[in-house]
């Protein structure tokens, strides 16, 4: 287990004076620049090996190294951060000064990421996801691991509206994905075999014919095969979902370790995905939209920041769902199918299309082979759309979209009866209006069932 279990106040006792500017860890240039350095060394190494002329290579590589180190140190020296009231302020830039204010009231999630090299050096990157951000909004790379944990606790406490020295909130593990299940989920995947089989075939063929040079042309295929199989196992290694008053915590990764904290009420929409081959096992994957994690890619390949559970039995997944959307029972929401005449539009897919709503969430289901269930709380709907193409118009059908923040989950109710779709849009607008009224406050410590013991301190 790599989950940090820290509690108790910040070392040092009293509330630290946070307006004081702080610096990143001095080893930051090394952790950031090693990739570029490796490339330079590789290029010159190759050059030297080919031309037998080593002196020039060494001199140039040395100069590049010195300049890079100097630049890295300058960047480090010019980067400071401090906490001012409700903002985390980051000043950076050597030539062009840049000041970034991350408003903690709009904090959507906090990630502590530790790439391989940073882990060796005992460093971690703190990433703050803020609503409306496209890229990592506020990123502090790199801090000492313990400092990152302390700072995360402090930022979350400030965002929650409790005392900043309340310390790390205690966390309670909900789900740990066992290794055999994770490996099984990768083996029971079409995508894995799609890339794995040709790869194995090529390697066997290459070894048999002794024509290894041929294999070089297929390196992109090998990379894909690696990413879909071993890469996934490494990424989701020891995937742990825990619960704390600060929200849901996800920790995973063997080489690059990632620890995500999503505060309560920050999940915009949820999707349960069941690939065809997982059906016999009853496994599902859970993906979420969190404002700030962004869209990832459109083509259905998963954005690992948005993965709440890479694989779990359906009941377990529903249990976790009940934690992020309290009082919601997805299976109890009454769903209605699409009209039979939708067969002229989508003869097969229409059989599995259904949608419905209860007083808290809207649920849409679809997928003949790969089954998907999309869930969006009424209060989180950004806008409602009704679209109708020529064929749909001919058949008297229409599609309703419930727009969420960018992310893997897109909620649509396709091919509804046109009249029903209009009614649905209207009802949804009304439900969302009521839902927004009942929304919890921004500072989640004032939510009922928060963590009174932390406020008292």
């Amino acid at each position, binding site marked *: 287990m790599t989950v940090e279990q820290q509690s108790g106040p910040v070392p040092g006792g009293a509330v630290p004076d946070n307006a004081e500017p702080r610096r990143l860890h001095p080893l930051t240039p090394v952790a950031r620049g090693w990739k570029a350095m490796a490339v330079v060394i590789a290029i010159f190494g190759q050059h030297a090996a080919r031309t037998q002329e080593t002196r020039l290579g060494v001199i140039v590589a040395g100069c590049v190294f010195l300049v890079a180190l100097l630049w890295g140190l300058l960047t480090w020296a010019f980067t400071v951060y401090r906490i001012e009231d409700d903002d985390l302020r980051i000043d950076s830039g050597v030539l062009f000064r840049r000041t970034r204010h991350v408003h903690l009231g709009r904090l959507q999630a906090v990630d502590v990421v530790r790439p391989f090299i940073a882990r060796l050096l005992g460093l971690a990157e703190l990433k703050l996801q803020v609503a409306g951000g496209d890229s990592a909004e506020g990123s502090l790379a790199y801090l000492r691991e313990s400092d990152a944990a302390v700072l995360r606790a402090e930022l979350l406490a400030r965002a929650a509206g409790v005392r900043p020295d309340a310390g790390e909130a205690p966390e309670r593990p909900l789900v740990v994905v066992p290794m055999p299940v994770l490996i099984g989920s990768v083996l029971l995947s079409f995508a894995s075999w799609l890339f794995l089989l040709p790869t194995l075939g090529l390697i066997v063929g290459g070894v048999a014919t002794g024509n290894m040079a041929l294999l070089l042309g297929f390196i992109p295929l090998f990379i894909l095969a690696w990413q879909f199989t071993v890469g996934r196992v490494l990424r989701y290694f020891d995937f742990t979902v825990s619960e704390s008053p600060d929200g849901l915590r996800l920790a995973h990764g063997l080489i690059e370790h990632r620890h995500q904290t999503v505060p309560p009420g920050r999940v915009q929409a949820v999707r349960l995905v069941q690939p065809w081959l997982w059906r016999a096992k009853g496994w599902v994957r859970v993906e979420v939209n969190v404002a700030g994690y962004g869209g990832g890619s459109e083509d259905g390949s998963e954005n690992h920041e948005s993965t709440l559970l890479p694989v779990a039995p359906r009941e377990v997944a529903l249990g976790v769902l009940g934690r992020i959307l309290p009082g919601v029972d997805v299976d109890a929401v009454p769903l209605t199918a699409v009209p039979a005449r939708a067969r002229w539009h989508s003869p097969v897919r229409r059989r599995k299309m259904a949608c419905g709503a209860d007083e808290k969430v809207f649920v849409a289901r679809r997928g003949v082979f790969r089954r998907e269930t999309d869930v969006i709380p009424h209060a989180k709907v950004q806008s409602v759309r*009704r679209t109708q193409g020529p064929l749909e118009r001919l058949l008297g059908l229409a599609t309703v979209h419930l727009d969420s923040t960018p992310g893997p989950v897109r909620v649509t109710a396709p091919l509804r009866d046109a009249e029903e779709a*209009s009614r649905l849009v209207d009802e949804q607008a009304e439900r969302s209006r009521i839902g927004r009224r009942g929304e919890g406050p921004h500072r989640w410590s004032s939510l009922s069932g928060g963590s009174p013991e932390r406020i008292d301190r």
Partner: protein
Amino acid sequence: MDHALAPPEQPWHPVSEQLFRVRRFLLVAVLVPLAVAGGVLAWIFVAPWLGALIAAGLLVATGWGVVALRRNQRSWRYAERADDLLIAHGVQFRRLVVVPYGRMQFVDVTAGPVERRFGIATITLHTASAATDAVIRGLPPEEAARLRDRLAERGEARSAGL
């Protein structure tokens, strides 16, 4: 219209006919010279009948495009309700967007050089969702300004956290 929605307290507003004129201008400015050039070149270098065919084809396409643009402009409409703004448009591909005032993050008013010349502007409503496709084209500038201020005011009053 086939939108069986709860009636907005204010009627649906149409957009300016200038939207049609701008688009017609752009369409004609591109397609007619193309028809002439293509027709003449084909007439000279290939065969007269091909030149006539190309020119006629492009001119028919232009005519059809003008009719389609007219119908499209007429399909644009919007309505302000107590808590949300409705925007509907499209003839072949119909769409209706409901944007709650409380979900608006910001409102853009834009007008390109051609649009400005024809005296219209475009309003875009942005929510936290990238899928929200809430655009009103072809608004007279004073109406665009009025709507922008009104939306800003209503958004302020009903603003909700994410």
